[in-house]
């Protein structure tokens, strides 16, 4: 089993059965997983900020408006079928309780990712967002099982394992 770390502003897609895509300690960032309903293909993006405002350097995916379309392209390139994609969101916490408005980036991240998904007509099948705790997400590619662990908590299933059909 190989764990691929998806760090701040990174994204990854895989159709390799043993792969697990991981983002450790998501705070205000969003871990966006895209999974194929039928095939063993999945992707994960670690979204840092909601909107590039057109100022992002090329090849960087920390903004929701760049990360979401790029992740869709990557999972489709890895063999997923575009109409069969579902989304799962984890993160977007408000880490600091006595906080300036500018730190409420978690909520803005979630809203931006949801807007991008809606524009792409991809439904969100599960989410664990908001609150004040950091979270780790693991996406098991073969089964599309998705687990979440909150700070100080135990890992639990957010999306249970799904059987994979043979690729057409």
């Amino acid at each position, binding site marked *: 089993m190989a764990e691929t770390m998806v*760090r*701040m*502003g*990174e994204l990854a897609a895989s159709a390799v059965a043993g792969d697990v895509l991981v983002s*450790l*300690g*998501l*705070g*205000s*960032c969003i871990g966006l997983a895209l999974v194929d309903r039928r095939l063993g293909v999945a992707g994960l993006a670690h979204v*840092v*900020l909601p909107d*590039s*405002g057109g*100022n*992002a*350097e090329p090849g*960087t995916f*920390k903004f929701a408006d760049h990360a979401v379309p790029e992740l869709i392209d990557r999972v489709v390139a890895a063999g997923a079928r575009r109409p069969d994609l579902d989304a799962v969101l984890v993160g977007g*916490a408000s*880490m*600091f*309780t*006595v*906080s*300036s408005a*500018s*730190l409420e*980036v*978690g909520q803005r991240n979630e809203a931006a990712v949801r807007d991008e998904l809606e524009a792409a007509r991809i439904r969100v099948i599960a989410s664990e967002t908001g609150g*004040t*705790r*950091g*979270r*780790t997400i693991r996406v098991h590619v073969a089964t599309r099982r998705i687990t979440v662990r909150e*700070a*100080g908590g135990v890992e639990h299933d957010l999306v249970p394992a799904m059987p994979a059909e043979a690729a057409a």
Partner: protein
Amino acid sequence: MTRYSDLQLDALRELANVGSGTASTALSGMLGRSVDISVPSVNVLPMADAVGAIGDAEAEATGVVLGVVGDMSASVLLLFTPSDAAAMCGFLGVEAGTEIGDSALMEIGNIMGASYLNALGQMTGMALEPTPPASATDMLGAIVQTVLAERAGAGDIALLLDSDLVVEGSDASVSFLLVPDQGGVEQLLARLGL
């Protein structure tokens, strides 16, 4: 990727050195104990690498964050391991993990942040003010990423001025980080004529 010259990095390290020296004196006065400082490190690295450079993303930590306003935008972040938080609170006669323990750590952040920024302001001629502190006890990665996200802007490079302060005769230490945004770094260097 934005590059800084060795001369610029040396100058930033020297600023961090004087800043953390002043902050250690303030911490020492608050705790009534001597405080040693490490030679600060200046890390310029891709944002994706920044958390790993600081520590284990899933390790528990207490972070105290202060905003910096005025002539430069930045964040000050103090990081305590659970045992450091317990020891620091112990020196101040309060219990870690309680509301009063959190407020003691925030007060440490306040005092150290204000003195660090004061020293930085005097060296550079900048007006710098800390905003009130906030704290969180959580996964290290979640704390650091949230601070970096706020300072990231359009850039993909994180610049971290990192100093460790150790209370003499104990294992208690605190990691003190100044995280300027990209414009903030250029401001600092411009004031130094670099």
